[in-house]
């Protein structure tokens, strides 16, 4: 995995709540057997007109948000289907940070497996950040994961919370499986007990 580095970039604003993973990556794009190439389908049904041209009314199509790495979005982001295609599409499109007041559990977990930092802020703070971007589209924020800082030009920055284990893994770009396999002895021991206790699960 790519280590997550401190960066300054444009924050794109999507003032929508309950954005579900079906919107993030519609099902017609789930038939691929690879992990890559989903970015071009991100938010497909909103982003493109029926004839395949760009929908000029869709937020992310605004030239002021071109190249944004930060996505500022409403409550309960990533609800619905568990598809990891959603964070794959988000990362492939170029976002590495999301800021919202809440996320659906599975989506939140999936972000960390794909070098995406989902920052949680309270609703009041989210509204302030949204106002700041709305008033000055194209504004850039600084995200400093090491120090858990979000810094904005208008001073709406904050220190955000994040699970220390997840933070370390993002910073180092660690692969979860490799970390777990360090505990292989414990897994073997657990499994031995499991076989004794529930032999019928092992036939």
């Amino acid at each position, binding site marked *: 995995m790519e280590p997550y580095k401190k960066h300054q970039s444009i924050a794109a604003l999507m003032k929508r709540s*309950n954005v579900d993973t*079906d919107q993030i990556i519609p099902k017609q794009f*789930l038939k691929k057997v690879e992990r890559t190439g989903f970015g071009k389908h991100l938010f497909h049904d909103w982003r493109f007109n029926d004839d395949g041209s760009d929908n000029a009314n869709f937020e992310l199509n605004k030239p002021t948000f071109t190249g944004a790495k930060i996505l500022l979005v409403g409550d309960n982001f990533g609800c619905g289907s568990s598809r990891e295609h959603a964070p794959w599409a988000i990362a492939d499109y170029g976002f590495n940070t999301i800021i919202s007041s809440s996320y659906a*559990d*599975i989506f939140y977990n999936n972000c960390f497996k794909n070098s995406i930092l989902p920052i949680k802020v309270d609703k009041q703070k989210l509204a302030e950040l949204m106002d700041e971007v709305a008033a000055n589209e194209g504004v850039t924020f600084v995200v400093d994961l090491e120090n858990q800082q979000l810094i904005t030009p208008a001073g709406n920055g904050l220190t955000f919370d994040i699970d220390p*284990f997840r933070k370390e893994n993002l910073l180092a770009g660690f692969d*979860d499986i490799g970390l777990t396999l360090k*505990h292989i002895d414990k897994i073997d021991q657990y499994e031995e007990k499991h076989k004794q206790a*529930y032999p019928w*699960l092992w036939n």
Partner: protein
Amino acid sequence: MKKTMYEKIWDSHLVVEAPGQAPLIYVDRHLMHEVTSPQAFEGLRVANRKVRNPHSILATMDHCVPTKNRDLPIADPIAKKQIETMADNCKSNGLNLYDMKNPNNGVIHVVVPEHGFVHPGMVVVCGDSHTATHGAFGALAFGIGTSEVEHVMATQTLPQQKSKTMLIQIDGELSKYTSAKDIALTITGKIGTAGGTGHVMEYAGKAISKLSMEGRMTLCNMAIEAGARAGLVAPDQKTYDYLKGREFTPVGDNWNKALAYWQSLVTDEGAQYDTVVVLNADEIEPQVTWGTSPEQVTGVTGLVPAPNDFDDDIKSEACANALEYMGLTAHTNITDIPVDLIFIGSCTNGRIEDFRIAAEVTKGTKVADNVMAIAVPGSYHVKEQAEQEGLDKIFIDAGWEWREPGCSMCLAMNGDELTVGQRSASTSNRNFEGRQGKGGRTHLVSPAMAAAAAVAGHFVDIRNL
């Protein structure tokens, strides 16, 4: 210390809790389908890792499979590749796969219980959010992402944060023709799609113990729609009767051992939950969603709301957007909403009990003009059982299509879909924009309500029939 069922299962599955790291929990059963697994197998291959416990996995093909002309080659080349990739991956890793032609095939969450593959007290995962279904058996069952699918295959464990607990206590009794689906939609309407975030829900109370195993599966299936990580129902005699004699259920002495363990899982008297929600089943009426989120729901005697019926700005705006997408006018009677297509099926409501109740409503009727109605059994076993009982004839005589099993219009990946502006009454679980086809408009209902709408051409209060 007094423990809830969730805490008992959690504690007994804790493999290691290293300082500064997420606890690792053991996974007993891993379910699989063709859409969320190929990249996980690819990951294993690249890292030169093996599937640790092939026997813990049961796989099916359900999302992309056609529900008609199953003998013909799959027309969509990309779906075909996904199906073939699944078959290759299962074969090369020695996994038990119920492929498209297998008599055990069907939607993963319908098939797994049919074979007794999930037992009380297990930790069960699947790259699919509706894994929560298996909580009906008192198993901790939840959806995971594809990286986690790979993680479980390689290590049989998952790093997890412990969830909070929520008790959903449902007192009273459902009336005839209100069902588990109506309870599920009522909960989602009450607490919202984010209401259960970070929680595992346990359903209890008289109305829950009265539900059949099928009903409990419907209920737990939609725990995710209320944002919960998982849903749980305590195992009881119904659970044990259902499991007994199935393929993966223990026999003889092992049955007795298992039973003693299962009985010990029930929440201790006096154990504390982080959140408690109480509902009364007597007050639950048949539910119909009017918007594009499962929380946008009301009783069949209700009205489509107006944006200014909501105090909360975000809800008000969501209502306005939903009305526009759904092509509905505020304050329309739910029973005045016309429908074009009826879908009975999915892992929410594609089980035998669902077709029985729908057939009871359908018997001797005709599908309304300009309405198309399709019945898609959740599995070949459901299909067979229904045919033995003559239910297929009831549907066919009434003008329904009787299809082969699969996810079908629940997520419309297999070619079964709504066209732009078409409106469905659907027994599935999600009414998101475009879920059943781009521009399609979905109203979630129970099987009985769907069957009644097929006859009338609009929603009707099933209790008046």
